[in-house]
C-alpha cells in the first residue's frame, strides 16, 4: 500500500469516527435517544449510564476531541513526528475504547452499537497507524530516509513520493 493511499484510508476512517462521535455528543447534549437496533435498548442504557461520563466529561465528547486530534495529526505534513503523533493518539483512542467496552460488558451489561462501531474504527486506525509508523517512509520500504536517520526532516508535500 502506498504512503498516499494509506494516509487517505486513515483520513476516511477518522472522518467516519468523527461522524459517530459527533452524533453521540449531539444526542448527549440534546438529551435525545440514539437511533439504535434492537429497540434502542442497549444504546440508550449505555448513553444514560453513570459510565457515560468520565470525571464529569461525556465520553462522547472525549471521543470527539480524540478524533479531531487524530485528524489534525493526519493533516500535518508527513514526517516521522506526525506519524508518531498519529500512532500515539490512536493507541490512546484504542485504550479508551477498551475501557469503554469493558464497562459495557462487565458493568452496564449492555452493548451500544455506536460505541462498538467507534471501537472497531479506532482499532483499525491503530493497526494502520502502527504499520505506517513502523515502516516509516513507504517508498523506502524499511530503509530509513536521511530525515529519519538524523538529517533535517523533509518538507516534501503530503503524499509526494520520496526518493
Amino acid at each position: 500500500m502506498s504512503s498516499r493511499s494509506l494516509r487517505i484510508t486513515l483520513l476516511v476512517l477518522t472522518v467516519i469516527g468523527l461522524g459517530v462521535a459527533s452524533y453521540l455528543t449531539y444526542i448527549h447534549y440534546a438529551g435525545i435517544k440514539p437511533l439504535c437496533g434492537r429497540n434502542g435498548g442497549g444504546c440508550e442504557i449505555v448513553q444514560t449510564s453513570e459510565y457515560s461520563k468520565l470525571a464529569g466529561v461525556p465520553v462522547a465528547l472525549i471521543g470527539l476531541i480524540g478524533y479531531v486530534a487524530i485528524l489534525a495529526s493526519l493533516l500535518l505534513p508527513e514526517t516521522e513526528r506526525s506519524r508518531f503523533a498519529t500512532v500515539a493518539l490512536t493507541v490512546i483512542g484504542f485504550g479508551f475504547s477498551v475501557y469503554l467496552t469493558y464497562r459495557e460488558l462487565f458493568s452496564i451489561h449492555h452493548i451500544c452499537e455506536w460505541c462498538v462501531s467507534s471501537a472497531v474504527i479506532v482499532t483499525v486506525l491503530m493497526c494502520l497507524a502502527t504499520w505506517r509508523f513502523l515502516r516509516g517512509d513507504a517508498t523506502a520500504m524499511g530503509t530509513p530516509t536521511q530525515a529519519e536517520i538524523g538529517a533535517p526532516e523533509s518538507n516534501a508535500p503530503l503524499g509526494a513520493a520520496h526518493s
Partner: protein
Amino acid sequence: MSTVEDDEQDLTRKQRREQARAKRKELEQAEAATAVRRTRLTQLGIVVAIVVVIIVAVVIATGGGSKKGIPKNTHEKNAIVTEVTSLVGGIAQNGNTLGDPKAPVTLAYFGDLECPICREFTLGALPSLIQKYVRSGKLKIEYRSLETATKEPETFKTQQVAALAAGKQQKMWYFIELFYHQQGEEDSGYVTENYLQNLAQQVPGLNLTTWSAARSDPELANSIATDAQAANVAGFTGTPSFQIGKTGGPLKKLEYASLTEPSSFESAIESTLKA
C-alpha cells in the same frame, strides 16, 4: 607487463574498491534502519505502557467492576435500612403502589429486581421524585414486573412474588428498595432463598410468617403475568420502562434522557399535572 595488463589490473582494483564501498554503505544503511526501527518500537512501547497504566488507574478510580450492593457487614446493612426507611417511610403504600391512592398522576415503573440499570434509576433519579412528588401527594408509583436481566424465569417469579408478598403488608417498596440497594452481580446466582429471607428480615415491621404464607398466593403470580402482558402491549422489551398519565386514565410511554438525573421525569410529571 604490457600497458593493457596494467590497465586491466587497475580496473579490477578500482572495481573492488567500489564494491567494498557499496557493501559498507549497504551495511551502514542496514544498521541505521535497524536502529530507527528499534527507536520506533521503543517509542511505541512507551506510549502503550503509559496508556495501559492510565486505563488501569481509570478502572480502579471508577470502580473495579460492577458495583455490588450486597452489604459486607451489619453496619452497612443497617445503614441501607436507615436510608430506605428515610426515603419511603411514612408514605402510603398499597400493594405494588407507593404514594397517595388519590394522587393526580400515576407513574408505572416496569422493572426486574435483578436489572442493574433499574438499580441505577432506583438509586439515581427515583429518590428525588419520591421526595418532590410522591411525598407531596402529586404522584403515585406502581412497580410492575418485566423479566429482562433475570435469566431463570422461576427465579424471576420467586423474587418478584417475594416483593409482592411484602406488598400484602403494604411494605413492598421497602422490599424493592432493599433489593436494589443490595443487588448482586448479574448472572451470579445471588438470589437464593437465604438472600430473600435476609431482605425480608430487614423490612421494618414485616411479619415474616405472614409474608412466607403470602408467597404461595396464586394471585401474586398472576399479577406478574398481567404485568408481562401490559409490557407486551406497551411494546416494552427492556427495563426500566415507564408509563405516565392521569390517575384512572390511560398511561402513555415516558421517554427519558437520563436515569440518574430526574429532569425527564420531572417535566413529564409537570406536564401531566397541567394537562
